[in-house]
């Protein structure tokens, strides 16, 4: 798709969403406005062309737009529904308002203990166990873990996913199990921003056919995760098990099956062959306790002109949260590593780090939410030193106060 066409498609989708919400009585819609007061040090974030590790950086302290989001779900008959989720993030993207997700869902009634769901469009792969609320947000923190920040930035399913669940809890058992599989395209750019900029902790979700970074600034420049360069569809397959409403286990194998030798002749961008395994566990206990562990390991690989470059990456985190009525206190610790190899020797691009996140959320009612969050990232980065954006070893601290108001029929 040409850039003009993409912009027109985004605008058309947003307009269609608004029209649907106004005209159709059965549509559930939501408009969220999220304003922030930010205090941050360190380099600019990747979205602004820097090598920072947080959503904001550089001189971006002060009042900021966290997110303006409009979402609508319209039932189409009894078994189909259309969901559109549009956001603006208040930073410079080539698309000022875009869709983070937009898909058609087919949900036949469960039969004989089985439930099938088929989604077609653009949506998140089932990786995160913290991004469980509307708009793929986390009820625990503002900033997502390193793993889920990367998913938000570069990984989206643009294709079809089927999920088949066996509903044991509806037939007298303690658990449900499910299998997921998907075929997708337009994700040949996934991995470019991770290889160049490393892991970050952000809640900035890339919009469809949006870009990451500033075209004039290396190493990420303007990564475009949602491109199809080689005509080869990607696939993923996963497994999920749930024990009552208390424990969720998830595993996913993702492979965008990009041809690492494919290069776009106009933009000279390469296809990034990205594969990963992700696993996670979430435990919800009595007295408002939640514990989450997620792990991700994979690599991204390009070979333009036969010169191999490979970036293996790994990350994991633990999160502990306690809810006291309308108040939620959460702490998370992230570890992450990106290595860089060119023709088998360790070379550029590596990053290693860890991060602490503390957050307090007060959900005053269904519409008002107040959040105070502190994120501290310590990392070593070859690119940061090489490109004069700071020392190889550095830290970055970001404190945010967020106030969010939700309009609509189905606020959280």
């Amino acid at each position, binding site marked *: 798709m040409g850039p003009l066409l993409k912009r027109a498609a985004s605008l058309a989708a947003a307009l269609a969403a608004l029209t649907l919400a106004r005209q159709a009585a059965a549509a*559930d819609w939501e408009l969220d406005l999220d304003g922030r007061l930010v205090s941050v040090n360190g380099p600019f974030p990747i979205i602004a062309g820097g090598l920072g590790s947080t959503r904001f950086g550089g001189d971006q302290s002060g009042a900021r737009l966290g997110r303006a989001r409009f979402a609508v779900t319209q039932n189409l008959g009894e078994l189909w529904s259309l969901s559109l989720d549009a956001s603006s993030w208040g930073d410079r993207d080539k698309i000022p308002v875009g869709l983070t997700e937009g898909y058609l869902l087919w949900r036949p*009634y*469960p039969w004989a203990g089985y439930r099938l769901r088929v989604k077609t469009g653009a949506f998140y792969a089932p990786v*995160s166990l913290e991004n469980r*609320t*509307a708009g793929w947000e986390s009820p625990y923190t503002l900033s997502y873990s390193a793993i889920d920040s990367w998913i938000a930035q570069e990984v989206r399913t643009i294709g079809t996913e089927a999920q088949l669940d066996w509903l044991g809890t*509806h037939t007298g058992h303690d658990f449900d199990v499910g299998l997921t599989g998907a075929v997708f395209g337009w994700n040949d750019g996934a991995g470019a921003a991770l290889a160049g900029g490393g892991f970050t902790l952000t809640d900035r979700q890339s919009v469809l056919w949006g870009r990451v970074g500033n075209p004039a600034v290396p190493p990420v420049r303007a990564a475009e995760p949602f491109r199809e360069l080689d005509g080869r569809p990607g696939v993923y397959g996963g497994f999920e098990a749930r024990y009552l409403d208390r424990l969720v286990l998830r595993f996913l194998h993702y492979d965008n099956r990009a041809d690492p030798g494919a290069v776009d002749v106009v933009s000279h961008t390469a296809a990034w062959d990205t594969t990963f395994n992700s696993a996670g566990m979430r435990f919800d206990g009595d007295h408002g306790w939640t514990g989450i562990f997620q792990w991700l390991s994979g690599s991204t690989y390009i070979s333009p002109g036969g010169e191999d470059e490979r970036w293996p990456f790994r990350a994991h985190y633990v999160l502990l949260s306690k809810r006291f*009525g309308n108040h939620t206190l959460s702490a998370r610790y992230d570890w992450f590593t990106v290595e860089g190899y060119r023709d088998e020797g360790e070379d550029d691009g590596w990053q290693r780090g860890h991060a602490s996140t503390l957050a307090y959320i007060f959900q005053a009612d269904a519409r008002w939410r107040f959040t105070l969050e502190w994120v501290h990232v310590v990392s070593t980065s070859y690119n940061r030193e090489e490109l004069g954006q700071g020392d190889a070893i550095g830290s970055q601290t970001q404190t945010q106060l967020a106030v969010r108001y939700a309009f609509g029929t189905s606020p959280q």
Partner: protein
Amino acid sequence: MGLMFRTWGAVLTVTVLLPDGRPQPGIVVTAYPTTGPSRPAAPVEAVMDQLNRAFEPDLLVIPVSSEVTFPNSDTVSHQVYSFSPAKRFQLPLYRGKPYPPERFEQPGLVTLGCNIHDEMLAYIFVTDAPFFGRTAADGAWSAEVPNGRYRILIWHPRIRDEDQDLRDEVTVADAGGTLTLHLKKPLRPAPLEGRPHSWDRY
């Protein structure tokens, strides 16, 4: 419920205790005479509402041929379904649109779900027993019944015991009859309370 208030003279009391000896409220108790004819209790009209993306109540016990309405007090749509053999049905409940009640003709357990909100779960226990009810805070259920011998069955969605451990017999004489059932296994954990239902979108 209907028949319990007829005066028969003798009181049947069934008490359900957990393995640690504590009484368990909320257990469904059904009582069938072992001899003579057994007529189901009179049908009732009951309500299974949807409120804050949950069924209210989470367990309904009704005699066969009863009717249940599903009003949907939420602002969002629901699609109630059951694939239980005792009653298979699908009921799309859109905002502000009333639906006629569903009639439950067969005894058995009907597990309810919502096709839009996967976390919603509730039960309708349809019984052909002439006497039934649920245990109170002291773990006991009582009813006035004619003298005779009764087969007692108990059930609850959180019980893990084998079926053969959930039944017994008791004789009710002029002085009444009492039966205490000891569960061998602890109950399944209760559904978590207080977690916002909007936390299950992904």
